[in-house]
């Protein structure tokens, strides 16, 4: 709302003055958060709610909140309390924005972006309401200046109304200000003989036969002239259609002035008096609506409210040791039919809401870091000075494939699996869990010094996802855009079906680091039943062996291009391969079998189970199952239910009906990118189609019903642990927004797990999927390494270790097998190999060339050896939690388990001496409760 009109400048100037005065006032009081008693630091706040752990304080003037942690006495502010002095970088409106609790991003009907801040566009105008609710408070914001300042000041007001509305509700001292600023005027009809009232530039005929008096006072000639001049000026000012005194005609003279005297605002009053009066009137609760009648009576333009306002409410409640902040989706409204230029009307879609951007924000001199859940987790040190790098922002659960893909992607990025973030600030910290609306959230973080002086991390919730459609055929002369297609923006047609809710939990002392955050989050998940501790009696470390069945190869048959199924590991070879590993002493194998279904790795639509004929008969498959059963190997055939690799006829899948759609109604795909150009690949084999979540229950039904007939207790799912994609098909009722999609995926995982009683092995798992996962492979190993992020931490592993067995990427196809193996030891993961029974040259020249090192004979010995080593180190701590992880020195990391076992891993090329103990280069040392145990 940054179109500043001329009359707004006064407001801005005064506001700045007021701000600076306030700043001076604040400067004189101790305001450093670490000094002074709680009462001093919370001056201006009042206690809104308290429980055994926390106190919630509220500032009724600024809608700021603060939370006092009773245990540590530390106070967390929603906005930095010392920003008036601390903020050195942001100026003006940007500086004031640090006082906001929410920021809105919306678009005009012409797709210009608008940013609104709860302070600048709501609190400053007093457009908010505080109400007490169960367990806390609720703040209702009306964002966007509803009435401009001058709307509050009547220009001409009848005597009665003046007394009733104004003088009646202001106190004595203010009353004189008003009386001095207004003239009481009455119009009197006189005969011809009376001297004509003459006003410079006004056509004399307009005023012929009229004169003006001021009832109750005798005016000098000069005062009378001033009064009339003033009246004429106010008439001109108050009407859009009059541009100057000369425009005034006889019928413009308000005859209503004849019946009763009225007060007319003096034109020459000083601007501070004017602002003073406006402030007083605002405080009395006067609504400009009440002035409408009078303005109409005197022919003046009626004050009209700005139609472009947004409504959002924020609820703060205390729940145990957490502060829960909620934005109810019902409270959100945006203008759907507001005027804009050219007399047209249109919607102002609300794209996103930043929530509590400055909660706990740390100033430029503070020590600590921000934790973001990028991949396995990343740490951003406060004030790291990396302003050359873009700020951190990433969508929770990765990109929604149904939103328009970026045109190019050269650099790979990790996704967010866990909707949490945190901050360590000195000896205190918080972890924030996004509890509702998380599929629509992005996590953003930035360091001090770029836009403002604060290190901050916060969620941004998408309200209406935005998509674009290119009008390709529009000639340049029509679109008016040179070079490039004209784009039209499309928004989701309704608000999402979920509130937005986050939970801040506070940490102090030794807990205030990422290990503490992981522990706290782990407790939260355990409490909710998402994580259940592993049974300590189970056997040792699992060994995940993925075997590749068939791959589809395009080959000409008699010159006709056909897809031929090339068997890599047949059903019987799979059995032999597993036996070869068993013979090498690898026990506890979990066999994942990909490409076992008809169509190979990129299998046909899984309407039911159809075995791949090139891999063997059904008899062979059953024999494999029995063999695995006898040898105690768990069997997890892999299937992709959400991603569809083919759109052929009569296979039960209709792309038009069942494929998820983007906002521009094209079908969405799980996009993969060309490795050279980074451009999206649009063929289904490279970028599978997304099955609409609304069809998932039916597909699960038909596939799993068929699958259970084979009597295999396990199943491995490809995309279901990680992918959450909307379906923007049609209008409101058909549309599946991202929150609904997540709910459907979760409910289907529940059905497969509980109703059908299958053990699930997931390829990657978001927080909600962990509940149903017995095993997770392809768990995130590191972070994206964004330049703004200082280092990666194994937060994900610290949360799930001891609850779910997991593995990272296949060791043989990782970036460097040796480093990956060390990483496995460091993060307590299980070994995982992706292999096949054929020579790897078989995949040369095929679309599966990324299986470039899959010959099991190459890896058999070293995999077995590594498993033996890993099991020795990690086998006995498999069911224990990781209590601490830290970097001891560059490239040397320590992982400490619940009962004291500690493993130090050295990634450096030279041996490292740590307090008298050597850790070999590219090796690790184990300490059992403080004593050195073994070195490798």
């Amino acid at each position, binding site marked *: 709302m940054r179109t500043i009109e001329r009359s707004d400048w006064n407001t801005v100037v005064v506001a700045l003055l007021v701000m600076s005065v306030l700043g001076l006032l604040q400067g004189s009081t101790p305001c450093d958060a670490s000094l002074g008693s709680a009462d001093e630091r919370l001056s201006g706040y009042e206690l809104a709610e308290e429980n055994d752990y926390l106190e919630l304080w509220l500032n009724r003037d600024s809608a700021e909140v603060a939370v006092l942690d009773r245990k540590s006495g530390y106070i967390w502010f929603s906005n930095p309390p010392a920003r008036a002095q601390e903020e050195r970088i942001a100026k003006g409106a940007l500086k004031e924005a640090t006082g906001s609790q929410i920021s809105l991003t919306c678009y005009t*009907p012409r797709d210009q972006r608008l940013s609104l801040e709860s302070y600048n566009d709501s609190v400053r105008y007093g457009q908010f309401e505080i109400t007490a609710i169960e367990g806390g408070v609720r703040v209702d914001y009306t964002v966007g200046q509803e009435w401009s300042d001058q709307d509050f000041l009547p220009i001409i007001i009848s005597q009665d109304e003046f007394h009733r509305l104004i003088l009646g509700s202001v106190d004595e001292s203010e009353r004189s200000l008003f009386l001095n600023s207004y003239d009481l005027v009455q119009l009197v009809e006189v005969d011809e003989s009376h001297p004509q009232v003459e006003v410079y530039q006004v056509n004399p005929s307009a005023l012929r036969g009229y004169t003006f008096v001021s009832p109750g006072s005798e005016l000098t000639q000069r005062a009378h002239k001033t009064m009339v001049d003033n009246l004429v000026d106010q008439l001109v000012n108050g009407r859009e259609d009059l541009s100057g005194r000369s425009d005034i005609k006889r019928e413009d003279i308000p005859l209503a002035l004849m019946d009763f005297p009225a007060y007319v605002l003096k034109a020459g009053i000083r601007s501070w008096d004017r602002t003073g009066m406006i402030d007083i009137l605002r405080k009395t609760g006067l609504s400009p609506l009440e002035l409408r009648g009078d303005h109409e009576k005197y022919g003046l333009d009626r004050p009209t409210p700005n139609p472009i306002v947004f409504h959002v409410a924020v609820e703060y409640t205390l729940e145990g040791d957490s502060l829960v902040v909620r934005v109810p989706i019902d409270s959100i409204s945006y203008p759907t039919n507001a005027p804009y230029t050219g007399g*047209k009307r*249109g*919607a102002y879609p609300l794209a996103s809401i930043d929530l509590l951007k400055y909660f706990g924000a740390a100033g430029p001199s503070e020590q600590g870091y921000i934790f973001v859940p990028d991949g396995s987790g990343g740490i951003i040190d406060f004030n790291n000075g990396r302003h*050359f790098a*873009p700020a951190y922002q990433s969508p929770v659960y990765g990109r929604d494939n149904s939103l328009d893909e970026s045109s190019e992607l*050269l*650099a790979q*990025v*990790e996704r967010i699996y866990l909707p949490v973030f945190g901050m360590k600030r000195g000896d205190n910290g918080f972890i924030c869990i996004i509890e509702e609306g998380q599929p629509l959230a992005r996590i953003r973080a930035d360091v001090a010094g770029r836009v403002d002086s604060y290190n901050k991390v916060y969620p941004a919730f998408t309200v209406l996802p935005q998509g674009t*459609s290119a*009008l*390709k*055929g*529009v000639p340049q002369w029509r679109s008016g855009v040179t070079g490039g297609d004209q784009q*039209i923006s499309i928004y989701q047609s309704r608000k999402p079906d979920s509130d937005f809710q986050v939970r801040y939990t506070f940490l102090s002392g030794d807990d205030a680091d990422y290990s503490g955050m992981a522990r706290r989050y782990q407790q939260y998940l355990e409490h909710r039943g998402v994580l259940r501790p592993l049974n300590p009696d189970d056997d040792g470390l699992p060994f995940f062996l993925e075997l590749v069945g068939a791959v589809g190869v395009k*080959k*000409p048959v*008699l*010159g*006709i*291009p056909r897809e031929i199924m090339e068997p890599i590991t047949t059903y019987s070879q799979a059995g032999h391969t597993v036996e070869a590993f068993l013979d090498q002493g690898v026990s506890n194998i979990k066999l994942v079998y990909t490409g076992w279904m008809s169509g190979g790795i990129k299998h046909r639509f899984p309407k039911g189970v159809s075995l791949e004929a090139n891999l063997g008969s059904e008899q062979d498959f059953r024999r494999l199952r029995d063999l695995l059963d006898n040898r105690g190997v768990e069997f997890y055939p892999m299937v992709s239910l959400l991603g569809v690799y083919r759109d052929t006829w009569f296979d039960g899948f209709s792309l038009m009906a069942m494929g998820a759609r983007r*906002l*521009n109604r094209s079908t969405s795909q799980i996009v993969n990118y*060309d490795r*050279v*150009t980074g451009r999206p690949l649009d063929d289904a084999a490279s970028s599978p189609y997304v099955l609409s979540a609304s069809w998932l229950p039916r597909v699960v039904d038909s596939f799993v019903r068929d699958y259970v007939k084979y009597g295999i207790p396990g199943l491995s799912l490809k995309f279901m642990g990680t992918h959450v994609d909307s379906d923007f098909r049609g209008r409101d009722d058909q549309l599946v927004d991202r929150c609904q999609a997540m709910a459907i995926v979760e409910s289907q995982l529940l059905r497969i797990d509980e109703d059908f009683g299958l053990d699930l092995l997931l390829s990657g798992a978001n927080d909600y999927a962990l509940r149903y996962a017995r095993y997770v492979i392809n768990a995130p*190993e590191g*972070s*994206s*390494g964004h*330049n*703004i992020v200082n280092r*990666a931490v194994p937060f994900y592993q610290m949360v799930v270790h001891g609850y779910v067995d997991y593995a990272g990427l296949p060791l043989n*196809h990782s*970036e*460097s*097998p*040796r*480093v990956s*193996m060390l990483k496995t030891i460091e993060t307590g993961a299980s070994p995982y190999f992706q292999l096949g029974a054929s020579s*790897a*040259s*078989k*995949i*040369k*020249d095929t679309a599966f*060339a990324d299986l*470039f*090192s899959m010959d099991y004979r*190459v890896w058999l010995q*070293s995999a077995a050896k590594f498993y033996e*080593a890993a099991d020795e180190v990690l086998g006995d701590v498999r069911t224990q939690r990781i209590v601490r992880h830290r970097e001891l020195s*560059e490239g040397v990391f320590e992982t400490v388990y619940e009962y004291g076992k500690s493993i130090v891993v050295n990634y*450096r*090329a*030279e041996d490292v001496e740590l307090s008298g103990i050597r850790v*070999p280069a590219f*090796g690790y040392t184990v300490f059992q409760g403080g004593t050195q145990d073994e070195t*490798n």
Partner: protein
Amino acid sequence: MPVRRLNRSAVILLTVILGSLLALTCTSEVGLAVPYTSYIYDFWGRAVPAPQAYLPARTVGGDDLGVGSFRDLRDLFDKSGDIYLLDSKNGRLVIVDSNWTVRRVIDQFDNGGVPDRFNAPEGVFVTDSGRIYVADTGNGRVVELDRSGHLVRVIGAPRSSVSGVIRDTFKFLPISIVVDGSSRLYVVVKGEAEGILEFSPDGEFRQFFGAPRVTPSLADVLWSRLATRQQRERLGLFIPTEYNSINIDEQGFLFLTIIEGVAAKTEPIRRLSPSGRDVLRRNGFTDPLGDPLVEPPSRFVDVVARQNGLYSALDMQRGRVFTYDRNGHLLYVFGCVGQQYGATATPAAIDCWGDTILVADRITNQVTVYEPTEYAQLIHAAIELYEHGDYNGAAQAWKGVLALNANYDRAYTGIGLSHFMSGELVAAMEYFKLGNDRAMYSKAFRLYRKDMATKHLGLVLSWILLLVIVIAACAKMKVFAALMEWLRTAVRRVGNGAARRGGVTWTVWQWLVTTIAALGFSLHVAIHPFSGFHELKRDRRGSVPASVCILVLTIAGFVIIRQHTGFVLNARDLKALNIYREASSILVPFGLWCVINWCLTTLMEGKGSLRDISIASSCGLIPIMLFSVPLTVLSHFMVAEEGSFYYLLMAIAVGWSAVLFFVGMMETHEYDFATTVYTGVFTCVGMAIALFVGAFLYVLVDQVAAFAGDIYRELVLRRL
């Protein structure tokens, strides 16, 4: 550049994979997640995935070194373990040792008693004796300092004793320098198209050297004649290209990169011999262009020569480092543009330090240190062993590479080479085939063929002799005549039977007989064109079904040639073979020829109907049909050098076809020679026009469809 001798043998490296995985001390990579993907170009020019060759080990910025942030980190140079970082906007040279501790910062020097500073320098070079040369671009000079940073001399703008060698408008803005073993100085100057400047050891300007010549293609010349001046300028044709960075290898040859102009797309990297000639070898599957056939093309900002003839070039378009061996084979690719660990925002310079590669970034002002993985170490070892003539050792290393990456063509060739050297030709051929090395395959095959021939010559000859004797005996005893007679009677008998049954059977029989007769006559026509075509028309001895048969067989012949021609002569991607495309590549021109020719000749008093024309034309295809199978068989016995013979035979087939077409038209339309020539020419023109109209219609329909789509989108999606 310190030359590291064969550090460990490849056998040790192999233990990386096959032995204990956790007990090796070679590299020091720590970072795990890398933002870039690794790939290599295969024979077909496709990028196929590969394991990571290099991983980022760390990034180093000015703050990490404790000398304050760099501003515009322009160049870096490694000399005997010391790294010279050129911090351009701060006008200083930061020298660090191999542990990244700062040795010295040179930000000013004493110039004849007056303190002097650099102004936006862009290049640095250090000689073996420790002399530091800085291209002080902003000051338009080259500054030479000694080891401790004292000024030795300043080399200013060149002056020439001969007028006209240096233009009056010449501006001396040095951006990159090298000094060769005999202290000659080579300077790349910004905005200079005449080449690089060579200065003698005493600082005198000698000559312009190695001007990047541009040879315009014929199309370029034609176009420049037709285009307006503005168009020419926009196209950038004939804009002489300029070099932008220089490096020197162990042999004293200069490596140069070109970033602007036409040469940037065709020869972005050059290696100049002392005589100024480009001697870079370009023998790889693709030329050293970075990413070939991709828009926008790679833009090399810097190149570094490494040991064993390897060189790595830095592409600023996508932030990638491409490493080639001395023959121009791409070895591996890593890096990307981005704001992540391991990526670079705007890469500016590359240097190496043993196998470690350093890349400087102008935006993040950091140096990223990349260390080789096991995979890259194996490749290096294989090449080093090969350079030293140890083919078996190299093969061992290549086997290690293959264990990690089955897509690596070079490794197959390397193993093949070791088999070849030890005389295992079959195995060698198999590996050369997997490695798509046709030249080596051909060499191995030549020996193999010779072996086979000497081994089996007697046997083959005796078989042939036997066959000849048998045939002669049969002919003598009239076995063939009897056989033909029997066949004829049999046919007649079947014919009579069909005649008796009458109806459909009789019609089919007749049709079969005429078609086969027509086919037989077509063969006769191909051999006796003049009388044949005359009879063909006069006696109506051709038939449409027979023509269709010929067409189908020709298409089949085409497919056979494509799919089954021997490996040496068949550089086509068999997996991409598509019979529909092959068929249309014959049917469309054939159909167009017939129709257009008929249209034309009816206007020009031609006597042939459309049927006549198509029958005659189909006879014209017979030589191609006849040659296809024998040629394909023959190709399996040929080596690369005999390819010309193969192509000669093919040319004979095509020429024969052309003659048949010509004679066919002449006889069918009863034209004289000249008329036939110009109807032929006009038919070709007409075909071109028809194709053009077809394409035009296609575009039109496409646009209408797009327009309809837009209207739909606006109606459905517009939310106003």
